[in-house]
């Protein structure tokens, strides 16, 4: 367990709802849920969740901290916004799901091998480096995420798509050596660092 996580457990003890309200984006909405079920029924990925959003909200209120923060459920959210549109209480469910996922990640207890979490990391590192997504590097990283053999397999399976993209100039085949980022990536890095500081301060995380 990470230090931040231990600190949070000690700070909030049994009051997980309060912890969520104070640390998770849009977390203060959780108490507004009236358990109608519309969000869960509206989620196109619903059948694949261990705990649909409605249940997550109930689990938060029931103080099931470990179960909530370590589940893969909220990582399933694809931001389709169906639930937000239909929720009779106008809870920003999508945002709460991302908030929970992000919080679990920050605490270091999010499921390590969750593909969404890993992809998000790869994507961020990729774009933050030069200010523009290097699509070739991103695809390669993604394909080879689970090892060399599986990477080759995925690459072969996607080959025709890749060639099509190169032909229509949607993908630069030389991007590994000649990727064009923003004019001054150093400035970008300074900017991002500052933004991270501000956000961490807002979320009460000492950096």
């Amino acid at each position: 367990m990470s230090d931040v996580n231990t600190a949070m457990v000690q700070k909030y003890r049994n009051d997980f709802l309060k912890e969520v309200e104070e640390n998770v984006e849009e977390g203060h909405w959780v108490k507004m849920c009236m358990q109608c079920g519309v969000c869960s029924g509206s989620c196109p990925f619903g059948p694949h969740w261990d705990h649909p959003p409605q249940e997550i909200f109930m689990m938060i209120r029931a103080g099931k901290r470990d179960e909530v923060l370590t589940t893969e459920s909220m990582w399933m959210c694809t931001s389709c916004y169906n639930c937000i549109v239909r929720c009779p209480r106008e809870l920003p469910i999508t945002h709460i799901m991302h908030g929970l996922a992000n919080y679990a990640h920050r605490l270091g207890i999010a499921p390590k091998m969750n593909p969404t979490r890993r992809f998000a990391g790869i994507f961020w590192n990729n774009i933050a480096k030069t200010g523009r997504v290097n699509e070739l590097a991103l695809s390669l990283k993604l394909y080879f995420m689970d090892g060399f053999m599986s990477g080759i397999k995925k690459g072969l399976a996607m080959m025709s798509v890749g060639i099509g993209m190169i032909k229509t100039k949607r993908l630069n085949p030389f991007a590994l050596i000649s990727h064009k980022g923003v004019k001054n990536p150093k400035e970008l890095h300074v900017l991002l660092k500052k933004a991270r500081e501000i956000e961490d301060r807002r979320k009460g995380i000492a950096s």
Partner: protein
Amino acid sequence: MTDMVATNETILVVGGGISGLTAALEAAECGKNVVLVEKNPSVGGRVAQLYKYFPKLCRPSCGQEINLRRLKANKRIRLLTMAEVRNVSGTAGDYDVSITIRPRYVNDNCTACGACAQAVTTEIDDPFNYNMKKIKAAYLPYNMAYPQRYVIDPSIVGSEEASKAKAACAYDAIDLEMQEQTIAIKAGAVIWATGWRPYDAAKIQPYGYDRYPNVITSVEFERMMDPFGPTGGKILRPFDGNEAKNIAFIQCAGSRDRNHLTHCSRICCMASLKQSTYIGEQYSGDADARATIYYIDIRAIDRFEDFYRKVQADEKVHFIKSKVANITENRESGDVVLHGVDTEGYHRYDNTHDLCVLAIGMEPSVRADQIAANVSADVSGFMQMDAANGAIYGAGCATNALDVNRAVQSATAAALRAIQVVNRVSSAEA
């Protein structure tokens, strides 16, 4: 009718549903002069469109009959039908009101013999049956309509059809020269009893009321049960006219929802519980017949809890604690499939039903803030008690979603308040 005398000692009652009728009768039976203004061609309001009343499951027509007798017997009430209040201005004890009266094209010679309807072939939608049925363009709104006087629909006036109707009438009751008129009257107090209307179900996009014939509203379901209704008292699927036996009810359709009506319409839980008993009544002994009620929580207001228990014990009625997420349709069979997740265990379901009834929310038929300056409305537009309202008093569903019992109580209260105002006016003038 234009020569109507009304003074500051007159009480104006707007809306001739059960609440307006009650208020008008209570005030008139206390000796006050009353002008009763009703928008429709006949009084009775939404209650006349119900098949049975909860909690006793009796027919509303018997209560209506008593009220109509009281109305006919009372000379102090001037009834204006097809009339709407345009403007109210003034202060307590001294209001000026303008009222617009649409032409009925039939005068009080009418004996309701129906010869005009026989002569006419043009058909129009029947609003009494929520447009589920067609009626002749010369019509009596419904069997018990009061006044018992036919109406010529304006759409045929000026045509051959209207002349046919006029020629068929043996009592010289049809007057095609009638014009819309606006009259001005005085009133000391106003009782506002314009009631409610069903929320527009088509706005609840995921339920497909506008797309799937077998998704209907509770008010339409109520009309189906009436032997004189659009289906002759049978529960028939609009898709194919077959009997519907496996029927779903969706609670809070448009209510308790920040995308629609924020308030709890309070009556719809009881209405669905009541309507689920219709299924037992219609298909007694038929093992296939069943009602499934999808709910967030059942709100059987105060002493109706025992009614809820009785329905829970009925083996034909099933309860699923879940707000349905959306409905799809089987294009071939017309069956509707309800999708959602229940709250008791978070089980995903995709349930097929013959027919789906939306327990539709109730909204005020006129928003209170549109009545007159200073009249106070809540967020949903229902009239709120407020000293700033002066002597404009709300009654019945104009003030909130109420059942008949509570609507009548609030009407009596409004009548008492109005009586006190006109009494003050009389003593000041004496």
